[in-house]
């Protein structure tokens, strides 16, 4: 099943701006810059203000603990507090499966106060998602039907008028005694036959030309087993592409990350909190629950979100199963493509071939990945000729550049159009 995204992208553009605007509004309203930054730098790996994570929820923490001084001590070095036999400290320690909290001896009391102030802020009220129907631009006026009806009416008028003209001139001829030309049925009319022949030949030609595009899947956007949004990860959260697609620098394959790579972050991040800023909506316009998608990941990764540990079999092997993603970018078997060469020595951005992936929720195929597309790029792209010492063997080009005869060296100049660069 093929799906297309172009119209989706258009629809979204409008309220993405709106969301970004609202986002900054919120920020200004609840500003506690010092505390928030400190929290995110030091605490966020294990704590959430409003929910239990690796450590307990911190909202109202100062009112729970015995004293503020106790809290300072705990944060600075919880182990020594536990070691001193403090009852409350030991209770907490045992309650949280004896997970030791990292010591922060460098935090000053003022900084800790700022953090406490920040975590004590009331949780932000859930924002009502903008109504997708509310965008006036979404209702595009479609006049196709009107034009079609008009065309048909005009065609009928033309035919009627032509036959009226014919009948009239025939009766006029009969009256004047001039013989009318013999009536040729349309299927024997040479002009008609010629026209039809031309249409058939042209049509066949178009069909053949289109035939070469068979198997190409530009705009292919299949439904994936997990609604994974590149926009949320690479766009909003600015995660580097190479963090997950580590192979892009090393191998021919960019590599889809294994689920344990996802779990590096998702051990902590067990809910989608960005639903206000960026509600997830699938192609059919249905709302997607990000939390449910994260649960799907846990299922694949063999993670028990309640125990916060991997499920293991008797031998200790993690009960993970691979995620069967639908492959979007397919090259024929006889094509050798190497990501690392393009990324490392070609210094190409991922977006050059994959489009604005950080804007896509569900990924679609941006380029048609045809040979013509590859070849055109190899014709027009300059190699890193001066910077990469590998190219020092091309003495002739270096001389030409020195003499000013040549501005740069294209991929095609160093054999980039030859068959066995990609086919072997």
């Amino acid at each position, binding site marked *: 099943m093929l799906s297309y995204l172009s119209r989706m992208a258009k629809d979204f553009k409008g309220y993405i701006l709106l969301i970004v605007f609202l986002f900054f509004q919120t920020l200004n309203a609840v500003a506690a810059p010092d505390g928030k930054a400190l929290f995110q730098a030091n605490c966020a790996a294990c704590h959430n203000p409003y929910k239990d994570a690796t450590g307990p929820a911190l909202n109202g923490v100062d009112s729970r603990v015995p004293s503020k001084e106790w809290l300072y001590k705990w944060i600075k070095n919880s182990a020594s507090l536990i070691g001193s036999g403090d009852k409350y400290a030991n209770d907490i320690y045992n309650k949280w499966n004896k997970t030791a909290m990292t010591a922060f001896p460098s935090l000053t009391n003022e900084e800790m106060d700022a953090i406490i102030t920040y975590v004590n802020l009331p949780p932000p009220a859930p924002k009502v998602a903008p109504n997708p129907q509310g965008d006036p631009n979404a209702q595009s006026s479609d006049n196709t039907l009107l034009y079609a009806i008009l065309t048909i009416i005009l065609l009928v008028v033309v035919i009627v008028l032509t036959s009226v003209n014919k009948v009239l001139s025939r009766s006029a001829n009969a009256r004047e005694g001039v013989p009318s030309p013999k009536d040729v049925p349309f299927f024997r009319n040479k002009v008609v036959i010629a026209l039809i022949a031309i249409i058939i030949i042209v049509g066949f030609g178009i069909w053949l030309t289109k*035939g070469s595009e*068979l*198997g190409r*899947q530009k705009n292919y956007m*299949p439904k994936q087993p997990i609604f994974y949004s590149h926009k949320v990860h690479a766009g909003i959260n600015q995660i580097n592409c190479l963090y997950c697609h*580590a*192979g892009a620098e*090393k*191998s*021919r*394959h960019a*590599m*889809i*990350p*294994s*689920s*344990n*790579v996802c779990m590096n972050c998702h051990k902590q991040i067990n809910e989608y909190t960005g639903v206000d800023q960026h509600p997830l909506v699938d192609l059919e316009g249905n709302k997607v629950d990000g939390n449910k998608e994260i649960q799907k990941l846990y299922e*694949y*990764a*063999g993670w028990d979100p309640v125990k916060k540990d991997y499920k293991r079999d008797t031998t200790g092997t*993690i009960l*993970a*199963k*691979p*995620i*069967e*993603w*639908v*492959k979007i970018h*397919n090259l*024929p*078997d*006889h094509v*050798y493509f*190497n990501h*690392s*060469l393009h990324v*490392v*020595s070609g210094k190409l951005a991922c977006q050059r071939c994959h489009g604005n992936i950080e804007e896509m929720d569900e990924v679609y195929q941006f380029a048609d990945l045809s040979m013509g597309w590859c070849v055109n790029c190899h014709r027009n792209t300059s190699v890193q000729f001066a*910077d*990469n*010492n*590998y*190219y*020092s*063997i*091309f*003495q*002739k*080009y270096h001389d030409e550049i020195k003499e000013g005869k040549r501005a740069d060296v294209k991929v095609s100049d*160093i*054999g980039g159009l*030859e*068959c*066995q*660069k990609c*086919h*072997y």
Partner: protein
Amino acid sequence: MSKKQYWKGLEELNPSDEFKAVQANEFREDLPFGDIDHIADATTSRRDFLKYLGFTTAAATIAASCETQVRKAIPYAIKPENVTPGVPLMFASTYVDGGEAVPVLVRTREGRPIKIEGNTDSKLTEGATTARIQGSVLNLYDATRLKYPLIDGKEASWESVDKMVTDALTALGGAPLYIVTSTINSESTASAVAQFVQKYPNTKHVMYDAISYSGMLDANMASFGQRAIPAYRFDNAKVVVSIGADFLGTWISPEIYTKQYSKSRKISAKNPNMAKHYQIEGMMSLTGSSADERVTCLPSQYGAVALAIYNALSGSAANVSPAINELIKKIATDLNANKGNALVVCGSNDANIQTIVNAINNAIGAYGTTISFGSTNNTKKGNDTDMNTFAAALKAGQVGAVMFYDCNPVYDNINGSLIKEGIGKLKLSLSFNDRLDETTQLCKVAAPSHHWLESWGDASSHSGYTSWMQPTIAPLFKTRAWEESLLKWAGNNTTHYDFVKNYWIAKLGSEPAFDAAIQSGIAEPETMPMTSAAFSGNVATASAAIASIKASAADKVDLVIYDKIGIGRGGVWSNNPWLQEMPDPITKCTWDNYVLMSPNRAKKMGAEHTDLNEVQREKKVFSIKANGVELKLPVLVLPGMHDDVIGVAVGYGRDKGVGRAAAGTGVNVYPFVGRDAMGNPSYYASNVELSNTGKVYELAITQTHHSYQNDRPIIHEFTLEEFKKDPNELYNERKSSLEHFTHSFDAPHGEEHGGAHAAEGGEAAHAPTKTEADWQQAYRENGTLYPNHESLGMKWGMSIDLSSCTGCGSCTIACQAENNVSVVGKNQILLVHDMHWIRIDRYFAGDPTKPDSIQTLFQPMICQHCDNAPCENVCPVNATNHSSEGINQMAYNRCIGTRYCANNCPYKVRRFNWRDWNEADCFEDNVYEDGRRDDINDNITRMVLNPDVTVRSRGVMEKCSFCVQRLQGAKATAKKQGRTMKDGEAKVACQQACPADAIVFGNVNDKESAIYKLRYEEQKERVFHVLEDIHTLPNVNYLSKIRNASVLQSVNPEKEKHEAHATHA
């Protein structure tokens, strides 16, 4: 020299019309058009045409309108840390086959071993491999391997096997238990066996070799007090004499010997010295075909020959036969002149003959110089006396239980029939073998052990040298290391890994030391200790025993039973389709065994018509009676065979349990193996009766496939004397033959191509004598109308040294493994549809009716990557064209299969996919099946395919690509690191596999590269291109063959002399 006549086969000497027709055409078959003349007259042709047109259009439309497949991209669930999909990993390990142990590097992709390379860090092998080492990766994926343990032929769990075996072992009650294995030289395995023996003290461990070296070991025991084979150092020998020992092919450690041998024979104009190799043998062996001087004798004369050499050393004249006497005189002189630099080896398993050979080596001071007892060769340690004792005990009912590991005595031992009868009577019979072979199927329990690629372990092919194995893949099937089984039954529940680890930690001192050992794979002394041994053999007794050997009766012949290079070690590898299809280096026959015979003998026996002609595939079937057994085999006529000697190979006629590729091919000739006076197997038989059955059998011989006209210079050969006298003979010959292009165009050349000449000044450009770079460049530019291909960056070039090449075939199999070359099966080979990218052409020189005159020469022939390629010009779709790096590229997906290119290739190196060999296309049920080769398409076996190389589909042309995937890979690495490529960074598969270092490959544009230096400096006198005068400008060059012989043989010396004279005049 080029006037000398070489012939690939007998049919080239006396070409029949049929042969000429075959040679003239690239393709043997006519196109399936039927009677094309009558097509126009046929009443239905137009309608048929329209029908076909309509059908194909409809079919194409339906095929094209199929829905695009939804493909999945499935990542690892949990990615192993060191694996990056798409990036190969290399692991050091050890190839083990019986006692053979060679340090190797295993290339894996996503956890699958796909290619074996030699470990160049080893000072013993220096990275040498053989065809069997290259092919061993396919054995791992053999679909016939046992997938689980069996009890009474039914699947069983390891728990039930353990219970059954321990119960049976405790119930033995003191009855002796035998463990029968091939040679084992692993220390940790020996320790595991020792633990088992400790638990069950009545255990006896018997080792035997499928091809026995017991006689040699016994002789060494008597001569030196050590039952061991010493280390041979062919590289230290200036004179090598071999009496029937095929040390380059199958004898003891051929990969090491080939490496050493080729070192002592590297030659250049600056250093024109090479070792001299004499060979005296009954049949034509691979080693014999590399020899400088070779004469034939009966195998029953090996003793007499050895004795004659021994006596000749002290001046006595030999009295064997005129030709041999003359040669022995020469040998004795050379040996005496090179005392301490000479080596004599003998392939006989007769202890008396080996004693004499030891005496000779002692007399010429070989011990401590070319032979060392300081490090013994542990590859063969079998003891046939023990084996005979075991068989006798089995017969007498004195055996309680038996276990077999890595051996198949029912098939390959002289006591096979006794063992076959005895196994069934035992309380416990167990086999650790990997398949239901002849022995395992008689056993009660099959407890399959791992393949070496799945296993931990160690081996010590030479004492003092250790190499380690590490698994490169998790066990494919429910197999268990046999050491682990033994330990378990001895009450030790440790895993094999822990056992090996603990053993070596105890020995090496620490776990890091063990890890380092596994990583490097080897531990070797800096230099091999060269230790002599005091000879105390009884020459008189041995001479007396030799004197009593009688020759065959006048109408009977002698028989040599030999081991095939591909199948090896008594047929253990006969289910390997790569090796079955590898053309035998000498006979070029695939998939079968046969009886080798000289042309004279064939003529005498009435087999001359079909058997002198290798184009004719039907061969006469002969009946052979030896050792009280009669077997029928097809005849293959081989020049160079002694007229009264026939040869047959073991390893065929396998049971169907061995596998589809092995079963039903050839005849098992092990029953011909006799027993000598000491009870050791004897691989020679006398008084063999031969008779012509009149029946015929088809043999698939590739020798005349892809033949090209050889009335032009393809090979250049010189004697050492000639080369010393005038090293530039070939160089000058080339230069003068291309004079037309280099001289007559001087003026325009100098003006047009000012670049090179401007530097030399205007006058130099007009001078008749030019530098070598110049005349070659002038020929390049002036010899064609086509534009010259410019290579700005890389220009790949290859050089093949005909003097070093022994024809062993490891390059052929390495290429097959690297490039996914298809196996086609015997029936398709018969149709000349073989696919090997490397064809090793075997040429003979000499008179086929005189076996002693035959000189053999091997020329590996691959795509020459012509800069002015005839194939490129004729392709209608430009599917084959030239790259800027000098590679003749083949774009499979562009090829439409017109085969014009193959037709136009002067070297006949293009291969067409006549069938869908490997399920490579999208049409279902299209794959070729013949019942024998089909396991190659098993889902498990397909894991061996190299994922970087396209699997070619039906209807496309293919050929050597210079391993472009490796070149691209090496370039990519350099490019990503932002540096220039180093010489030797990109190695092609054949180059890497070659044990003789005959192949040099690299970037010719790099003036520091080995290939540049070889072509233009070090070896410029020997360089030539095949068919250079047709201006194909190949990027492959050859180095002339230098033979350390007094004369170069020819069919008709008078005629050739005359022609040479005429040319000269």
